[in-house]
Each structure stands twice: as structure tokens, then as C-alpha cells.
């Protein structure tokens, strides 16, 4: 019975763990053990392995500090942690852009002219990857955050919206004249699904 009670936090969902940690702060370490590897990998992808360790520490310290603000209606805290980590990535933009340069440099060069068939086959894939890597780096910060959380970290639309504090709707904010003007900044930050289920901004 006692053992079961002691083991209970390990089986409890994140919301329960966080709630218990309000009075028993050491419980919060359970959250670290569950999610830190994924936050570390996310950080390493965005700002490089060297800076990732610091970002993980900062993420969990910030999360611990504001754990009383956590909305316990969400049993999974990972999107919340991704949101905190994403905000902190903003303080590491220089590291992030260095990562994009490294990623672009790591893409193999196209075959030299003359190998027409191979060039034809690879030009689309390689060219597109270079183009996309550059485009990703050029995106406004908020849009890049959305795209990366969904495409790289496999968060759902709802989880991404929750992580970034973006309202989730099913229709774009009106942009055409005569349909009303979106408040400044909301168009870029609004996340929605179009009829095909594709991500749109």
C-alpha cells in the first residue's frame, strides 16, 4: 500500500504531477525525466547541441517557477514545455541561424553538369531542400516556430496553438479589403486549417 502510494506520482499524468509539486516541489523532477530528452533534442535541432543543454535547464527552471500557472485541464505538459523552450530560443537567434547555415552547408552539392539523368533526378530534391532551408531561416520568427513544432516535433495543431498561445480557428483572419481588417499582428499569428486540412497562416 505504501509502495503503491509512493509510486503513484510516476504513473500520474503531468497535470497531477504539477499539482502535487505545488506543495511537494521535488515531484517536479518527474516532469524533467519524462520530457527533458525531447526538449533537448528540439533545442539541439534549433540552436545546436552546445547551447541545447543550457536551454533545457532554462526551460525547466522557468517551468518550475511558473508551475502554479499551469492549466491542469491538460494532462500532457509537453506542449507547455515546448512553448517555454520556444520562447527561450528567441534569446538564441544567433545560434539558431548558425544552425541553418550548418544545415545548408551539410546538404550535398548537385552533381556536376554532364550527368544529365542524375542531375534531373536530384535537382528537384536537392534544390528544393536548399531552397526550403533558406526559406525556413527567412520566415518571421512566429511562423517558423509554428512550422517547426508541427513538422519537426510532430505536435498537433491544437498542441502547437497551445504551446505558442495562438488562437486556433478554422477560418483565416479576413485580409481582403471590405472584409474588415485583422488587428495588427494577428494575421501572422493565427493558426488555422483550410478545407484540405493543410496548415495555413
Amino acid at each position: 500500500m505504501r509502495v503503491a502510494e509512493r509510486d503513484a506520482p510516476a504513473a500520474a499524468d503531468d497535470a497531477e504531477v504539477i499539482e502535487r509539486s505545488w506543495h511537494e516541489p521535488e515531484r517536479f523532477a518527474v516532469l524533467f525525466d519524462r520530457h527533458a530528452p525531447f526538449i533537448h533534442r528540439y533545442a539541439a535541432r534549433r540552436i545546436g547541441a552546445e547551447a541545447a543543454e543550457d536551454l533545457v535547464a532554462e526551460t525547466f527552471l522557468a517551468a518550475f517557477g511558473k508551475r502554479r500557472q499551469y492549466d491542469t485541464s491538460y494532462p500532457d505538459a509537453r506542449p507547455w514545455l515546448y512553448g517555454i523552450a520556444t520562447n527561450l530560443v528567441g534569446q538564441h537567434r544567433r545560434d539558431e541561424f548558425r544552425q541553418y547555415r550548418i544545415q545548408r552547408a551539410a546538404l550535398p552539392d548537385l552533381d556536376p553538369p554532364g550527368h544529365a539523368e542524375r542531375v534531373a533526378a536530384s535537382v528537384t530534391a536537392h534544390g528544393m531542400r536548399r531552397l526550403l532551408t533558406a526559406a525556413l531561416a527567412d520566415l518571421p520568427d512566429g511562423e517558423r516556430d509554428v512550422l517547426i513544432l508541427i513538422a519537426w516535433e510532430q505536435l498537433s495543431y491544437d498542441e502547437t496553438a497551445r504551446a505558442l498561445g495562438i488562437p486556433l480557428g478554422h477560418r483565416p483572419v479576413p485580409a481582403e479589403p471590405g472584409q474588415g481588417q485583422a488587428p495588427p499582428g494577428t494575421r501572422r499569428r493565427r493558426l488555422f486549417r483550410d478545407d484540405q486540412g493543410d496548415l495555413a497562416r
Partner: protein
Amino acid sequence: MNDLDLVTELTPQVPLPAPADLAGPRRRLTAAIAGERTDARTRDESGKGAHLPTSSCQRRTCCPRSRPRCSS
């Protein structure tokens, strides 16, 4: 293949970290947790036996913990 699939293909292949890579961040979190524990204990101890001034007790506005002493 849509645009999202293409961006997904660009996902940098980064392995999950080894436990040693997380030891530093975990230590920092553990220290913060211990710090909060210590703060809470200090607050509790400094709160024990603390009563509002007698004049407040006499005005019956003191905290419940101190009331028994007031009534005596």
C-alpha cells in the same frame, strides 16, 4: 507531397540525448527545488510563534493561530 511534408523531410537527424547530457540541467533543477524547499521551511519556522502586536490582538484582528494566546 505538400509543403509540410517537405519541411518534415528537413528535420535535422538529432538523436535523443544520453543521460549524461541531461545531468547538468537536472542538477540545476534539483538545486532550484531544494532552494524552494529551504525557503518554505524558513518561512514556516519564522512564522511559528509570530503574533501580531498585542494591540491588534486586543482589537480581535489578529491571525487565528495567535488567538488562543490572546484569549489566555
